[in-house]
């Protein structure tokens, strides 16, 4: 179980503040969805919270331990128990589907025997509905298949903390439906989920907590209900444009 706390996070790129003094909390065992207009820094915030991008100022606390000051074994333990689903799959192009799935297992469970290792890979691929040609490289897969394999790779170590950066974007409706179901199933586990979704349905069904950001600044944070009923005009405008659409977009 992971509890994440961001304190005074500032990220500057090309003399522009991408994130400015963000201070927020992602409660353990809950799903927190980051929302905001396009280009406001949602993906960047997720990557900062996952310590994938170094920040110019501020600290990330994982269960009260400062991630920036964590030693190598502590950081490896954090990585073992967390995973990140990227917007564009980010599969390792020079490795087959099998190798993409195998690398996290070999790194974090070196003692695992070959049969258990292979069974685990097949089990995860079966879960996402992709068991064909596991020796193909990502370039030979469709976009939807890549997304599915990416989700399977993220879940193979059974992480307690999952970051999801718009995993449903640019996938066809049938794959999106399947992925949505898998993601909703994750909501019923004890995992802490920090997500950026653009699907209104998924936000409504998944969000326990919401964080609203605009232009890299925190507008509001709280339970999904409180944010959706907020009187803050910026929050209301974002909620209206994002959640109160007639059509669900992916």
């Amino acid at each position, binding site marked *: 179980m992971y509890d994440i706390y961001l304190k005074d996070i500032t990220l500057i790129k090309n003399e522009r503040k991408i994130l400015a003094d963000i201070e927020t909390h992602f409660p353990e065992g809950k799903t927190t969805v980051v929302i905001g207009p396009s280009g406001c820094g949602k993906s960047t915030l997720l990557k900062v919270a996952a310590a994938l991008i170094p920040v110019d100022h501020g600290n990330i606390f994982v269960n009260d331990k400062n991630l920036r000051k964590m030693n190598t074994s502590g950081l490896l333990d954090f990585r073992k128990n967390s995973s990140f689903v990227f917007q*564009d799959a980010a599969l390792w192009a020079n490795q087959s589907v099998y190798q993409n799935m195998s690398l996290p297992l070999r*790194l974090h469970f070196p003692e695992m025997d070959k049969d258990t290792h292979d069974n685990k890979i097949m089990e995860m691929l079966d879960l996402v509905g992709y068991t064909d040609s596991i020796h193909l490289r990502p370039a030979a897969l469709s976009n939807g298949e890549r997304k599915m394999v990416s989700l399977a790779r993220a879940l193979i170590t059974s992480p307690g903390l999952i970051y999801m950066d718009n995993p449903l974007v640019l996938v066809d409706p049938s794959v999106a439906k399947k992925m949505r179901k898998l993601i909703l199933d994750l909501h019923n586990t004890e995992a802490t989920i920090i997500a950026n979704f653009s699907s209104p349905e998924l936000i409504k069904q998944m969000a326990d907590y919401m964080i609203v950001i605009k232009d890299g600044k925190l507008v509001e944070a709280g339970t999904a209900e409180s944010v959706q009923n907020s009187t803050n005009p910026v929050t209301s405008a974002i909620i209206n444009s994002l959640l109160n659409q007639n059509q669900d977009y992916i």
Partner: protein
Amino acid sequence: MLGKLGRWMINHIKALLYGLGFFFQIMKATIGFARKGQVGKRVLTMQILFTGVQALTNISLIAIALGAVIIIQGVGILPQFGQGDLIYPILITIITRELGPMLCAFIIIARSGTAIATEIGSNVVNHEIEAYIATGIDPISYLAVPRFIGVTISLLLLNLYFNFFGLIGSYFITQFIHPIQAAEYFRKILFNLHPEDIVSSIIKSLVFGIIISVVSIYYGFKVEQSSTEIPQMTIKAVGMSFVLCMLADAFIVLIYYTLY
């Protein structure tokens, strides 16, 4: 004007310090790689296969051709001055000490340096580096160190091949224009081949290997977001590798002639 010059200086000093820091980070990770059982061993094997084994044909042909050129030119000119036997020290100076390591380095820059910068640049653009970090894999240990070790070892081995084929090749060419007994040819080659020639050649190939790998990896990681940056950084990696190899060569030659 002064302000501009100052900023230019500061930026270059910063870049130099950053590059040195990057180099020392790779060195540190290399020690860790050798000590621990790393998942990057497959990457190392593939790098040696690509850089060391697949370049073998090119290296052999160039070495034989170079040996032939030296013999043809030398046999045509040197006897006119009564210095026919000078062909052996010339062969050793050119093949073993100078052009062997340098031509191998040029071939590796063209083949592997470009490939490394392009591949790592693509990894950055496609967020594969972030995926490695998210998984708990240090990109320096997993991507940089195997390439660093692979290129350095391969360049050393290719240089040995180059010497072998260059000296053997020149013997076969000699048979066409000025037949000579194999025993006599190799006796004279070995007589003129001094330990310092071999040491100089090995040091050069090691230094060039380190330069090419570190520079290519460095520029690969300098790609930030766009795929258009990849060819730009690859060109920079090639240019910088050439310049640094030439400077290192001049420096090693200077030390060689100071010591011997």
